[in-house]
């Protein structure tokens, strides 16, 4: 790692207030190309709000978000998407009445670049990209199912397929395995690993510590909108503040064992 390396994403003093509540409070951090940054923290810490701000769905009250050297703080969500940032949502979002394939097709067609004039047909390049995204998450063969009728794992995978179909440089994932069984978590972990290996930089929010520490190259723990820990995942189980406000003694011991097992 050289000091001259440019961050892909840089949040500088970002705050988001809802009335008097500081959901995100003067938060600064950098994400470098190739990173998998894991964000954890108790409920209401401001993790989702941070994603809302970065993705343009909700504008920051103050501070700036720089992506590839460009200030994106004031851009609308569709422009942020075209700039190369895609996200998934904590609550499963989909185009309920559309087929699985159409859900991803939308993203592949509209997500890559701003289309001044919509065309008459979805081109073969978009179809290829749609197929590739469905295969990457393991949804191949389910093209014609209706999104609203999918089981929860498939809905999360569909959201992920939509995100990568936009060809992002940066992928933001909000609790990708919330509510999944251990086997399903493993499936999602494989999918995320493959995406990361494909050269996409990732920021993920997760309460499932196993998922967070095994995937992340770096971890950021938030509390009351502020950062209370930023560093390697190995340091988490030993950090007093993190144990006190988030993990608790029992969980931190289990986490410590998990990290040791992973290293040996």
């Amino acid at each position, binding site marked *: 790692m050289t000091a001259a390396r440019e961050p892909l994403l840089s949040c500088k003093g970002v705050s988001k207030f809802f009335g008097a509540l500081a959901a995100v409070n003067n938060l600064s951090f950098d994400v470098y190309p190739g990173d998998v940054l894991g964000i954890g923290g108790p409920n209401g810490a401001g993790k989702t709000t941070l994603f809302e701000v970065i993705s343009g769905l909700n504008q920051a009250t103050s501070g700036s978000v720089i992506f590839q050297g460009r200030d994106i703080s004031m851009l609308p*969500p*569709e422009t942020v998407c075209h700039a190369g940032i895609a996200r998934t949502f904590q609550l499963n979002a989909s*185009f309920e009445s559309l087929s699985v394939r159409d859900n991803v097709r939308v993203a592949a067609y509209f997500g890559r670049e701003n289309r001044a004039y919509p065309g008459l047909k979805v081109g073969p390049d978009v179809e290829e990209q749609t197929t590739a995204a469905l295969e990457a998450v393991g949804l191949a063969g389910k093209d014609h199912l209706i999104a609203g009728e999918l089981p929860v794992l498939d809905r999360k995978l569909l959201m992920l397929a939509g995100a990568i179909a936009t060809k992002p440089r940066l992928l933001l994932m909000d609790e990708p395995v919330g509510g999944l069984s251990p086997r399903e978590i493993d499936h999602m972990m494989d999918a995320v690993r493959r995406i990361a290996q494909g050269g996409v930089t990732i920021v993920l929010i997760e309460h499932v510590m196993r998922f967070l520490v095994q995937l992340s190259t770096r971890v950021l723990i938030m509390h009351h909108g502020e950062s209370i820990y930023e560093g390697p995942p190995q340091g988490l189980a030993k950090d007093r503040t993190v144990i006190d406000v988030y993990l608790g003694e029992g969980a931190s011991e289990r986490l410590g064992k998990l990290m040791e097992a992973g290293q040996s």
Partner: protein
Amino acid sequence: MSPAKRDVLVCIGLAIVLALVPLVIGTRYIITQMTLFFIWAIVVTQWNLVLGVAGIFSLAQMALFAVGAYATAMLAYYFAIPVIVAMPAAALITVAASLVIGAACLRLRGPYVALLTLAIAQVIYLVVVNDTACFTNPPSGCLPLFGGVRGFSRFGDLGFRALLGSKFYVAHYYVGLSLAVLAVMFSIAIIRGPLGLAFKALRDNPGYAMSRGISKFKYQLWVFGLSAFFTGLAGAFYAAQFGVVGPIVFSIAMLLFLLSMIVVGGMGTIWGPLLGAALLMLADEGMREVGDWRDIGLGLVLAVFVILLPKGLAGVRLRRAKAGL
């Protein structure tokens, strides 16, 4: 076969069958009613793009139809422009009007869109009927700028009366059919193409659609603009067909009649609104005898469908197909 190809083939098949009708049926009344069916078919397929495909509850479509009809009559009446030239010009004026309405509705949701668009339609209606100052004084008497309660007549026609004499209505049948086929092809291209994807995505989940690169602003304007072209053209053809344009085109009864066609047939589908238009015109025909009960009958049909078959007749067919029947 891709769904788009199948739809286009169905459309061509229907067009061929309908083109043969005047060769078999000579009754003027039936041919004229079918011409009217083509006009309503155009309006409902285009309205369906906004209402069913994009999920925007706009009630402005009949006002846009009226803009097309009035613009044709006024261009022809005041500037002596041939009706055939006034018609496409009127369609473009309708597009402009619709873009303004679409922009006004941008920040509104659900029922508020319905309220605003209905209010806009009422304002246009009131401007037309409340302006009683004479703008010109033709031999038939004082004529306000927008025609007042009497409306416009004697603004010319498509020229078929001079050419074919009493058989002109057959030519109008074919004009109506051609416009309807074009309008249906247009709606197929939109619903089955990328625009349809954008509209449906925004309908299903606007926030998610935006974060996948779809600008709500841009595509809401697209759907308002595109759906207005053939609606305006239908209004223009209505003016040419009947030779009179009056404030009746703004009536709530007419609005409900067309809205019912879409609801009965199935919102958001390609063939539902057409099916609904055919069925409701037949039902309306069947209830001619019962006079005032006609509107009540239509109201009941609408109520039954909203309660029992909210997805319309096309919805029933789809569910059956899925169940493997």
